[in-house]
C-alpha cells in the first residue's frame, strides 16, 4: 500500500491532489462507483497544460493560447496548429499526442478535399477525432490521448468552437477555456459571452486576450509567450505570432474593457 490513503467512496477530487485508487491500473477496469480512473487521469493531464481560450462571434472564431517555455534558453512551445485553410486547433496537455492527432486531422482534411472537392465540415472531423479518442479508452493495449483540443473552424454552417476531451466526448461552445488556471478566464468569459455574438473581430480578439490574461501567472501577456488565430468567412485560418501579434497586444492594453463592447476601437 502506498502512503496516500486509497478512498473508496471518493469525492471527485478533480481540483485536489489525486489520491491513488485501487481501480486505476488499467483503462479497462471500472471502479465500484462506475468511473474509469485512467480516463479521468488523462483529463487531468489537460489541466496541467497552459491555458487556451476559444471564442466565437457571428462570423469569426478566435483562439488564443499562452505558450510555455521549458527554461530561459528554450523556445516557446507551439500551441496553435493549422489543420486546413478553414480550421485549426489549440491544444493543452501532452504536445506529442497533439502532434500525432494534428497529423491525422490534416490528412483527413486533405483526403476530404481530394474526394469531395470541398473543405471538410468541422463537426465531421470533430466526431472523427472523438471516436478515435474513445477507441483508446476501450482497449487494454495503449492509453488514452492526454491532450484536450479546442477546435476552431468555419464552414457552411458558420463559425464553430468545439472542445475535444481525452475521454472521447466533444462539446460545442460559444466560448471556452482549458488548461491551468483556466477558471479565472472562464469566469471572465461567463460575464461577457453574451456580447460576443455581435462583436466585431477586433473586439473579439481583445476579449480573448483579456480572458487569457486572467489565466496567466503574473498578468504578463506579450507577443512572445502568446499566440492567437482567427478564422472567418473571408479569412483563412491565420496564426498570429511574435511580431504580427504586437498590434493586438497593444490594442488590448490601450482600452479597458467596457460592458457594451459592440463598438469598434476608439482610434
Amino acid at each position, binding site marked *: 500500500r502506498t502512503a496516500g490513503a486509497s478512498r473508496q467512496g471518493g469525492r471527485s477530487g478533480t481540483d485536489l491532489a489525486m489520491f491513488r485508487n485501487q481501480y486505476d491500473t488499467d483503462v479497462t477496469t471500472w471502479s465500484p462507483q462506475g468511473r474509469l480512473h485512467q480516463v479521468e487521469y488523462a483529463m487531468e493531464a489537460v489541466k496541467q497544460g497552459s491555458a487556451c481560450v476559444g471564442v466565437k462571434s457571428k462570423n469569426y472564431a478566435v483562439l488564443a493560447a499562452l505558450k510555455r517555455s521549458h527554461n530561459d534558453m528554450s523556445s516557446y512551445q507551439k500551441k496553435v496548429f*493549422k489543420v486546413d485553410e478553414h480550421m485549426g486547433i489549440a491544444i493543452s496537455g501532452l504536445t506529442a499526442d497533439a502532434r500525432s492527432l494534428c497529423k491525422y486531422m*490534416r*490528412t483527413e482534411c*486533405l483526403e476530404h*478535399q*481530394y474526394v469531395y472537392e470541398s473543405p471538410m465540415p468541422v463537426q465531421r472531423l470533430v466526431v472523427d477525432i472523438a471516436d478515435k479518442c474513445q477507441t483508446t479508452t476501450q482497449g487494454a493495449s495503449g492509453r488514452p490521448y492526454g491532450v484536450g483540443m479546442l477546435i476552431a473552424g468555419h464552414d457552411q454552417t458558420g463559425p464553430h468552437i468545439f472542445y475535444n476531451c481525452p475521454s472521447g466526448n466533444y462539446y460545442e461552445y460559444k466560448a471556452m477555456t482549458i488548461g491551468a488556471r483556466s477558471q479565472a478566464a472562464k469566469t471572465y468569459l461567463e460575464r461577457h459571452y453574451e456580447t460576443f455574438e455581435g462583436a466585431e473581430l477586433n473586439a473579439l480578439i481583445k476579449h480573448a486576450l483579456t480572458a487569457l490574461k486572467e489565466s496567466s501567472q503574473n498578468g504578463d501577456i506579450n507577443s512572445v509567450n502568446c499566440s492567437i488565430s482567427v478564422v472567418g468567412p473571408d479569412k483563412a485560418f491565420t496564426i498570429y505570432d511574435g511580431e504580427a501579434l504586437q498590434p493586438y497586444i497593444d490594442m488590448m492594453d490601450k482600452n479597458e474593457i467596457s460592458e457594451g463592447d459592440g463598438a469598434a476601437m476608439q482610434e
Partner: protein
Amino acid sequence: MKKHFKNKIMIRSYWKNFFWKEISDLNSLKEENLLKKNSDFNFYQNNGGTVLGISSKNFSLIASDTRFSLGMTLPTRSTTRIIKICSNIILASAGMYSDIFFLQNLIQIGIKKFKNENLEKCLVSSCAFYLSYILYCKRFFPYYSFNLLAGLEKNREGSCFCFDAIGSFEKTSFCCVGNGQSQVQPILDGIFQKKSLLEKKDFRTMLNAKSCIKEIFLKIAKRNISIGDGLQIFIVTKKGIFIENHFLKLD
C-alpha cells in the same frame, strides 16, 4: 453450340449469348481464346491541348490552349489545363483530361502535405522530382498526361520542367508539350536558342515573350484542328501569379 463451316468455325460464347466471333482455322483454336471478349474499349482518349512554357530571369510563364477535343467533336471550348500548385509553382498538362484532373489533384495535395510537414515552401525542383515519382509509380498503366511545370526558385530565377508520360523530365528554359509539340518546338528552338539568324530581338523579356506566344498560337491554330478557341497564359512573378486570357479562332 458449334457450327463447322468450310475452313471456318463459328463459336457462340457460353457467357455472352449475344456475342459471337468468326475465326479461321489458321488462327488459334483454343476455346479460351475464342471465348475472349473482343474488347473495343480503349482506356485512353486524347483530349488535345498544347502547352508551352518559357522561363526567364525574373518570371516564368505557361501558355495553353483551351480547346477540349474528342476526335472530331468539341465537348468544350474553355477548359483550364493550368493550375496553381502553390504561390510560386504552376503546372500544366496536355492529354487525357480525366488523368490530368486527378494527377493535378494528387500533386496539389502532395505539396500541401509537404508544406504542413516542413513549414516552408517547396522548391520547384523538389516538386518536379515529386511529379516524376508519381508518374513513374504508374509505369505499367501510365497517366496519359504530358506535363509542364514552371515556377520561380528562391533567387527569383524562373525555371521550367517538361515531362513525358512516365516521368522522365528535364529542366529547360523553354518547352512545348501536347498535340502541337512537333510544330511549336522547332519555332521555340529557333527563337530562344538564337539558332535562327533572322531574329534579332531578345525574347526573354516578358512583353516580347507574350507577343511571341500569341503569334505562335494564332498560327498553329490555323494549321492544327485540335488547337484553337482560346489561349490562357499563367505568369509567375515575384509579385504573384497573373492570368491572361485571349481568343483564338473558333474553327
